[in-house]
């Protein structure tokens, strides 16, 4: 009789799954991801494997200063998070006194520990919670993405209101969604050489609504020829 508490030597490593059903699934960084690759002008990618860590802290205290962005803005950084060799993080000011830190897949324990250390040094009352497996995240990419989002979201997405690096929470297809405008500046972007990227938005919602939001966006994007692609970051 084998002891049930002893791990089997050849036990498979657990695989994390996004709430969004993948196309041609394969495993990457411990996550089941889509192997789809699309070169369409408008694409949607499931970015749920990215590490997602939430921080709540005083609206304008020392922690807010360390994180470097306020409510309504998003920026890559901060340097203090990358000091330990962590990959680049996108810090989003998702609410008043509320931040969301996005980083490469598999880095959430390290990001959380680094944030906790950063916060401990300030003496402020704050919380750090790893939301990686509790939320869904997707990326829309393409010049038609604002026209497409306008069908399901009432916010004015013009450059004056939601420029690159803007973040807000509103209703998208009747679902409470965090939206970050994060234009792509990779080699595939036609304007990359000129310094203007391709319009792109990150959409973040509760995990249980992930497939719904993904399907609603695919439906809204049909008239623009939207296609599903694998992780944009990996493809870039």
């Amino acid at each position, binding site marked *: 009789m084998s002891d049930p508490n002893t791990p089997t030597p050849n036990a498979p490593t657990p695989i994390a799954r996004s709430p969004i059903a993948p196309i041609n699934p394969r495993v990457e960084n411990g996550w089941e991801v889509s192997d789809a690759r699309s070169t369409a002008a408008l694409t949607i990618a499931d970015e749920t494997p990215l590490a997602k860590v939430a921080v709540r802290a005083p609206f304008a205290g020392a922690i807010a200063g360390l994180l470097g962005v306020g409510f309504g803005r998003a920026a890559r950084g901060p340097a203090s998070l990358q000091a330990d060799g962590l990959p680049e993080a996108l810090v989003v000011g998702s*609410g008043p006194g509320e931040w969301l830190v996005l980083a490469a897949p598999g880095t959430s324990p390290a990001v959380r520990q680094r944030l906790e250390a950063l916060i401990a040094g300030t003496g402020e009352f704050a919380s750090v919670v790893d939301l990686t497996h509790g939320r869904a995240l997707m990326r829309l990419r393409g010049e038609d993405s604002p026209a497409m989002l306008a069908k399901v979201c009432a916010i004015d997405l013009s450059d004056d209101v939601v420029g690159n690096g803007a973040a*807000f929470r*509103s209703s998208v297809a009747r679902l409470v969604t965090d939206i970050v405008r994060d234009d792509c500046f990779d080699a595939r972007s036609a304007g990359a050489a000129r310094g203007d990227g391709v319009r792109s938005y990150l959409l973040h919602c509760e995990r249980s609504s992930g497939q719904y939001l993904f399907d609603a966006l695919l439906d809204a994007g049909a008239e623009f020829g939207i296609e599903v692609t694998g992780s944009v970051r990996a493809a870039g």
Partner: protein
Amino acid sequence: MMLLTCPWCGPRNSTEFRFGGESHPRPRPDAATPEEWRDYLYFATNPRGWSRETWYHGSGCRRYFAIERHTETNEHRAIDERRAAEARR
């Protein structure tokens, strides 16, 4: 579509909010009579005109906030706390 201006998020569709009702000063729990408590909990002035209200921005910043709204025109404005304090006097 009625637009409501959240002090954190700016103008948003009113469907993003939940109405929290008229807000009045809370009576002192140790001094109020049962009648005063009942009035505070269950009765609204329901004026035709400016009304001080609480709203909750559930689809945005998830904050409660107070505004003054004109119940006839839906015009609304942020509360001037000093003027509100004078009105209570």
